[in-house]
């Protein structure tokens, strides 16, 4: 089943952040693409998605799959792998909803890159983890809750 998820939230730093932080990559533009600061510093998921993808309007899709533990042994090192069978992938992002800054990491992709991104993230507490894939101009997502017994944000 697919359903649209409309996330409410103000546009963070406006169009400048969108232009600088988002958009498709061409080989030359990847080299110039600045670290998406606005997304990383957003305190809401919607602001972060708008900053990186230019939209927070995402559709749940079974073509985005997540490989991550149901329970993290250690919140400081939680492995998350995002895979997608969608074509025309432009970007992937991973958000841990209950982290103080939900946007943890992203991948910008150009022609030769593909629909697989894996990393290890820090999670402060049990939380849904949302994985987004922008492909063919549309934003798709999948979600999985990860239980955390020992938090890992370094407090």
């Amino acid at each position: 089943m697919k359903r649209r998820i409309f996330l409410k939230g103000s546009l963070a730093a406006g169009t400048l952040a969108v232009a600088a932080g988002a958009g498709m990559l061409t080989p030359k533009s990847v080299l110039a693409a600045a670290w998406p600061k606005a997304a990383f510093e957003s305190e809401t998921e919607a602001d972060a998605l708008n900053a990186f993808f230019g939209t927070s309007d995402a559709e749940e899709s079974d073509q985005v799959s997540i490989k991550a533990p149901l329970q993290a042994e250690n919140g400081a090192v939680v492995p998350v792998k995002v895979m997608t069978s969608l074509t025309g992938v432009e970007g992937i992002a991973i958000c841990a909803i209950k982290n103080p800054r939900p946007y943890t990491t992203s991948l910008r992709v150009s022609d030769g890159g593909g629909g697989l991104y894996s990393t290890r993230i820090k999670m402060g507490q049990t939380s849904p983890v949302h994985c987004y894939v922008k492909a063919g101009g549309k934003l798709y997502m999948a979600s999985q809750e990860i239980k955390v017994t020992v938090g890992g944000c370094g407090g």
Partner: protein
Amino acid sequence: MASTKMKIKKSKSGGYEVMVLAKHPMETGLRKDKKTGNKIPEHFIENMEFAVNGEVVAQANLGTGVSKNPLIGVGIPNAKPGDTVTVSWVDNKGESDSAEKAVK
């Protein structure tokens, strides 16, 4: 340099997957030095670029929410044996490192 290691393996979905292990503290800026009581400043990898034969195919954006000694995996579906894959990263202090490997 020994602080960035990479492996290239065949991907189940076709093409290859690059796995990179970068030695880096990924400090959040929230931890306190136990001796001085001062906060240890943020120190984390910002961008990590993946290139095949010199052409950048992906750029991973990391932040303080990524674990210490980042282990990053990226799909490179169009790579072929003989291609050279390069990974290079830069952190918030301007420090950087890179590694290169051929696809077998």
